[in-house]
C-alpha cells in the first residue's frame, strides 16, 4: 500500500530540522532564519495537504505505524504515528496557521535582537504540536503535550526582561502543569487497567467492558482536567490572558489556534472513552458552558486588546468543550468544526491586533481609534474576523456556532442552549466594541494619528487567513455536511455513530434565525454604545458599578487564587521552613555541634606538647601491660 500517509511522519520532522539548523547556525543566519523555518514549514504544509486530500478523496482506513520503543518485562511500549480523519484535519490546521504566522512574524519581529531564537522556538513548537497530533498513544501524546507546554513557556517569556512576561511565563507553566498532573494520572490509570497506552487498545478495552465504569469516569475526567489546563477552561483559565505578554504572533499561533486547541483535540481524540461515561461528558459540557459565558462576560470590560481576544479564546474553547460534552455525533462534529474555523478567525484577529499594536505601540483600546483610514487592510480583515466570530452568515463562525447550537438543541439540553446563546450575544458585543474602539471614531493619541499600514509580509498572511475565515464554513453546510460525513466515516466516527443512532439533527431554520438575531443584537448594541455613541457606554458601570468592577477584575479569580492557594501554600511553606530551620536544622546543628565538640576535645589533646603525648603513651602502655598481665596474655613466672 503506497499512500501519502506512510510519509506523514515527515510532517513534524521538517520543523524539527528547521529547529536544528537555526539552533546550530542561528548567529550566522540572523534574519535569514525566518526563511529556513518558513521553507520547512511550507514543506510540512504541502505534505499534510497531500495527506489530507488523500484521506478526503478516498476515505481510506486509518493508517497506524508502530514500532517497539521500549521493552519493560512483558510490556512492550510502542512508538509510531497514526493518521485518521481528525488528526489529518489537525495537521492541515496547524501547518497552515504556523506557516502564515511565521511569514507574518518576519515583519512583526523585524529588528528584534533575538530574531533567530524566536524562529527557533516557533519551529520547535510546530514540531511538538504536529507530533502531538499524530501520536497514536497517550504516552507519546504526553511527551509532546509537555513539549508544547515548554515551548509555550519559552515563547510567553520571550521578552524575559519584562517582569510581567517572566511572571506570565511562570504562571502559564505552573497552571497548565496542574492540568498535566491530571492527564498523567489518567494515563497511569488507563495503563493500569488496560495495559496499553494506545488509543485503539484503550477504546477496545472500554468497549468490551474490561474497565470498571468508575475508572472510566475518573480517567475521562482526569483527561479533561489536563485538557482544561491546556485549553484554559475554568478554573485553570487564568494563565491564558496573562500569556498575552508574549509576542503577538505567538499569541496567534499558540494561544489562539493550536496549543490551546490541543485540549479540545485531546478530548475529541479520546472521545470513545468519554462516550462510555455520561458523567464525564456532563462535566465537560457544564465546565465548557460555564467557561463560555464566564469568559465572555469578562471580555466585555477589558481594556487591553489582546486580553479581550484572550478571553474570547477562552470563551470559544468553552463552546467547543460544550459541544463535545453534549455528545452525539453532532456535538463531536460541531466541536471539531468550530475548532477549525476558530483556529482561522482567531489567528486572523490576533494577527490584525498585532498589526495594530505594531503600528501604535499600545495595547489599550481606549488609546486607539480611527485606525480604519490609516490601516485599511488591517481594519478590513479585523472586521471579517469579528463578523466570523460573532456568527454572522455567511462567515465561517456562523456555520460552526450554529452547528454547536443545533447539537445542543438536538440533545434537548436547553439550559446549555441558553448559556450558549447568552455567550454568543456577549461575544458579538465585545468583539464589535473592540472593533469600534480601535478602528472607528477619532484618533486619540499622537501615535494613533501617525500610524500607518503594516508591511506586506504582515498583511499577506492576514488576507489569506481572512479568505479562510470566510470560506472555511462552507466545508460543512447544514444541508451538505461534507466535513461531518467525512469525520463520521473514520473509525472513531463509526464508533460514535454506533452509540448515537439518531441523525446529526439540525434545529431547523428558526434556530439559525435566532442565532443570527442574537449576534446582530450584540453588534447593534456595540454600535449604539461605541459606534454612534447614542447609548452611554457608562450606563452599566454607573448604575451597577460592582458588576462592572467584578467583570473588569475578572471576577477576582486571580485574587481568590492568590488568597486560597498562593497565600495558604506560602503559609504552609513558612511553617515548613520553620520546621526546617528549627527541627531539621536543629538536628543538623546538633550533628555539627557534636562533631565540633569531639573535634574540640581532640584538638585540646593535640596541644603539640611532647610531654602530653608522652603522658598519653605512658597511660596506653600501663593499660596495655595491666590488661595483658591480668587477663593472662603473658604468662610469667613459670
Amino acid at each position, binding site marked *: 500500500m503506497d499512500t501519502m500517509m506512510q510519509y506523514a511522519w515527515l510532517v513534524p520532522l521538517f520543523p524539527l530540522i528547521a529547529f536544528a539548523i537555526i539552533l546550530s547556525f542561528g548567529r550566522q543566519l540572523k534574519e535569514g532564519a525566518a526563511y529556513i523555518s518558513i521553507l520547512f514549514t511550507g514543506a510540512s504544509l504541502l505534505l499534510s495537504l497531500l495527506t489530507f486530500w488523500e484521506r478526503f478523496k478516498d476515505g481510506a482506513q486509518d493508517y497506524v505505524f508502530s514500532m517497539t520503543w521500549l521493552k519493560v518485562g512483558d510490556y512492550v511500549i510502542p512508538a509510531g504515528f497514526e493518521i485518521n480523519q481528525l488528526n489529518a484535519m489537525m495537521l492541515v490546521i496547524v501547518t497552515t496557521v504556523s506557516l502564515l504566522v511565521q511569514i507574518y512574524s518576519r515583519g512583526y519581529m523585524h529588528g528584534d535582537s533575538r530574531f533567530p531564537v524566536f524562529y527557533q522556538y516557533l519551529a520547535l513548537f510546530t514540531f511538538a504540536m504536529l507530533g502531538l497530533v499524530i501520536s497514536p498513544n497517550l504516552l507519546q501524546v504526553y511527551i509532546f503535550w509537555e513539549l508544547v507546554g515548554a515551548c509555550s513557556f519559552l515563547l510567553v517569556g520571550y521578552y524575559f526582561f519584562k517582569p510581567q512576561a517572566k511572571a506570565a511565563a511562570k504562571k502559564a507553566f505552573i497552571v497548565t502543569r496542574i492540568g498535566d498532573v491530571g492527564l498523567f494520572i489518567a494515563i497511569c490509570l488507563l495503563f493500569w487497567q488496560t495495559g496499553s497506552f494506545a488509543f485503539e487498545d484503550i477504546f477496545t478495552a472500554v468497549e468490551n467492558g474490561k474497565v470498571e465504569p468508575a475508572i472510566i469516569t475518573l480517567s475521562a475526567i482526569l483527561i479533561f482536567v489536563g485538557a482544561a489546563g491546556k485549553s484554559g477552561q475554568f478554573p485553570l483559565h487564568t494563565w491564558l490572558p496573562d500569556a498575552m505578554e508574549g509576542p503577538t504572533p505567538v499569541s496567534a499561533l499558540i494561544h489562539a489556534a493550536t496549543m490551546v486547541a490541543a485540549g479540545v483535540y485531546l478530548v475529541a481524540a479520546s472521545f470513545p472513552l468519554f462516550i462510555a461515561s455520561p458523567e464525564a461528558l456532563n462535566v465537560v459540557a457544564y465546565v465548557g458552558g460555564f467557561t463560555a459565558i464566564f469568559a465572555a462576560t469578562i471580555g466585555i470590560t477589558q481594556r487591553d486588546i489582546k486580553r479581550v481576544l484572550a478571553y474570547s479564546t477562552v470563551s470559544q474553547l468553552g463552546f467547543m468543550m460544550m459541544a463535545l460534552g453534549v455528545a452525539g455525533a453532532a456535538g463531536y462534529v460541531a466541536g471539531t468544526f468550530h475548532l477549525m474555523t476558530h483556529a482561522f478567525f482567531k489567528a486572523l484577529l490576533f494577527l490584525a491586533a498585532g498589526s495594530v499594536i505594531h503600528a501604535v505601540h499600545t495595547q489599550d483600546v481606549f488609546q486607539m481609534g480611527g485606525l480604519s483610514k490609516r490601516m485599511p487592510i488591517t481594519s478590513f480583515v479585523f472586521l471579517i474576523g469579528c463578523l466570523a466570530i460573532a456568527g454572522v452568515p455567511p462567515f465561517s463562525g456562523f456555520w460552526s456556532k450554529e452547528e454547536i447550537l443545533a447539537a445542543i438543541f438536538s440533545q434537548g439540553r436547553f439550559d446549555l442552549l441558553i448559556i450558549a446563546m447568552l455567550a454568543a450575544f456577549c461575544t458579538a458585543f465585545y468583539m464589535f466594541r473592540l472593533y469600534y474602539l480601535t478602528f472607528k471614531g477619532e484618533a486619540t493619541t499622537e501615535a494613533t494619528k501617525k500610524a500607518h499600514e503594516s508591511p506586506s509580509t504582515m498583511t499577506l498572511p492576514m488576507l489569506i487567513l481572512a479568505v479562510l475565515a470566510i470560506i472555511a464554513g462552507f466545508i460543512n453546510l447544514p444541508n451538505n455536511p461534507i466535513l461531518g460525513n467525512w469525520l463520521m466515516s473514520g473509525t472513531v466516527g463509526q464508533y460514535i455513530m454506533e452509540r448515537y443512532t439518531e441523525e446529526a439533527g439540525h434545529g431547523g431554520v428558526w434556530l439559525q434565525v435566532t442565532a443570527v438575531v442574537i449576534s446582530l443584537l450584540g453588534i447593534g448594541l456595540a454600535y449604539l454604545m461605541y459606534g454612534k455613541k447614542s447609548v452611554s457606554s457608562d450606563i452599566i458601570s454607573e448604575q451597577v458599578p460592582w458588576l462592572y468592577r467584578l467583570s473588569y477584575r475578572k471576577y477576582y479569580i486571580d485574587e481568590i487564587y492568590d488568597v486560597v492557594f498562593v497565600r495558604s501554600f506560602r503559609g504552609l511553606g513558612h511553617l515548613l521552613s520553620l520546621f526546617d530551620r528549627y527541627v531539621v536544622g536543629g538536628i543538623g546543628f546538633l550533628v555539627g555541634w557534636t562533631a565540633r565538640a569531639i573535634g574540640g576535645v581532640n584538638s585540646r589533646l593535640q596541644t*603539640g606538647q611532647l*610531654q602530653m603525648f608522652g603522658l598519653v603513651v605512658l597511660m596506653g602502655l600501663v593499660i596495655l601491660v595491666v590488661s595483658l598481665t591480668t587477663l593472662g596474655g603473658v604468662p610469667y613466672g613459670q
Partner: protein
Amino acid sequence: MDVHISSYLLVALILFCVGLFGALTKRNAIVVLLSIELMLNAVNINLVAFSKYGVNAAISGQIFTLFTMTVAAAEVAVGIAILISLYRNRDTVNVDEMDQLKD
C-alpha cells in the same frame, strides 16, 4: 652469694620511673634531656645486670651498653644543639611553649 639480680632490677626500675616522671613533668628542656639520660642509664643497669646473671649471660650485654652510651652521647649533642637553635629563635627553653606540632 652476690647481690641478687632483682635488687639491681629494682634500682633500675626506680631510676627509670624517676626519669620518666621528670621527663613528663619538667618544663626546662635541659632537665627533660637529663631525665631521659636517667632512663637510659636505668636501661644500662638492666643490660649489665643481665649480662652477668641472665639466662644467657654473655658479654653482649656490656657491648650493648656501650652502644647505648654512644647513641645517648650523640642524642645529647644533637639535643643541645637543637635547644640552642630553638632558644636563639624563640628565646625560651620552656617545653610548654614548644607546641608547633599542634599546627
